[in-house]
Each structure stands twice: as C-alpha cells, then as structure tokens.
C-alpha cells in the first residue's frame, strides 16, 4: 500500500524515531511502512491520520 508518511514526516522535520515515538510503535515499523513492506493496521492508520490532521485516504492509498 502506497503512503505519504515519509513526505509528511519530512515536512515536520521528524526522524523515523520521532514519528515512531508519537505513534507508539518501533522505528522498524515506521521504516517498514514507509518502504511499503508492511501495511499498518486500521488503528495505527487512524492514529497517523490524527497525528498529521489529514484524512486516511490522503496518507494511505491502495491505488498505483
């Protein structure tokens, strides 16, 4: 699943560790999501959407 997590994180000047701390997950999970090797669960996707104050569809997309 494609996502814009890396771009959104860069705008805020957060490291992967910073984002991981804010989402309550490990840095490895953030890296796996950004490299599209892992799709987050729904609760985690909602958490990310709330953190960036964006709709989920603007962060995650299953379209190529």
């Amino acid at each position, binding site marked *: 699943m494609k996502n814009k997590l890396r771009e959104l994180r860069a705008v805020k000047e957060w490291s992967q560790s910073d984002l991981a*701390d804010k989402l*309550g*997950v*490990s840095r*490895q*999970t953030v*890296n*796996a999501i950004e490299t599209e*090797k*892992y799709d*987050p*669960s729904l609760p*985690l996707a909602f958490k990310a959407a709330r953190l960036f104050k964006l709709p989920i569809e603007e962060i995650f997309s299953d379209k190529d």
Partner: protein
Amino acid sequence: MNNKPNIPEELAPGKYYSIRTELKVNGWCWVAVLTSFVNEAILLPHHMDWPVALRAVIALIPWAASLLWVRSVAGWIRGMDELHRRITLAACLFAAIATLFVVVGFHLLVVAGVFSPKFQATTGFVIIWLVVCFYILGQSVFNRRFK
C-alpha cells in the same frame, strides 16, 4: 510515563540487549532448562527407588517452569508493536512446528533402532534448546521480509 513497545532486539545479542528483560522474559526458561538437566541427567536415573509421587513432582518441575515461561513470553509479546508482534508470533509458530518435526523424526529413528533409546533421557533439556534455536532462526528469516 514511557510506554515504548517491547522490541525483540532486547533479547538478542547486540546493542539493545537487556539483562533485565532477559531475566523478566526468560527467567523461567532458565529454571526449566537447569531443572530439566538436573532431573534427567543426574537426579531421577539414580533415585528410581524414591516414592512415585515424589518422582512425579520432581519430573514435572521443568514442565511447570515451562508453563510460567510461556506466560511471561506471552506478556512480552503483548507489549510489542504490531509489526514485531507479527514477526515474533510467526517465529514462535515456526519454532514450535520445527521442534515438533525434529522430535518426532528423532523418535521414529529411535523406534527403528537407528539411535539408542538412552538419548531420550535428556529430551526435555534438548527440546527447550531446539525451540530457542529455531526461534532465533525464525526471527532472522521473518525480520528480513520487512527490512
């Protein structure tokens, strides 16, 4: 309060290794391994004249310690984040199935007379080490998928 999720690296050799986490998660495993070795290799074979109930209790101490180990591992896995929980559960399943296959295969070879039955005297001790080794292998394999 720091609510960082547990990470599998705390139990693997490396910069994140934590003795405190090792004792908290695997303390009962060490008890099971040590008591299993003492029971099977030293104590029970030389005291078969002891009362049945006493021998049964002594024999089951590692088994009870193993149950407590599984409980502490389950608690540790519950504290992980979703990706690590998925990887660790997959590694645990792989370790359990692989160990089962090795133990069954070994048993079949003992029945066929390829190995001597006396090797089964330390089965409990060996099983725990097999589970640990296959778990480490499983962690390594499943971790690669997400790196």
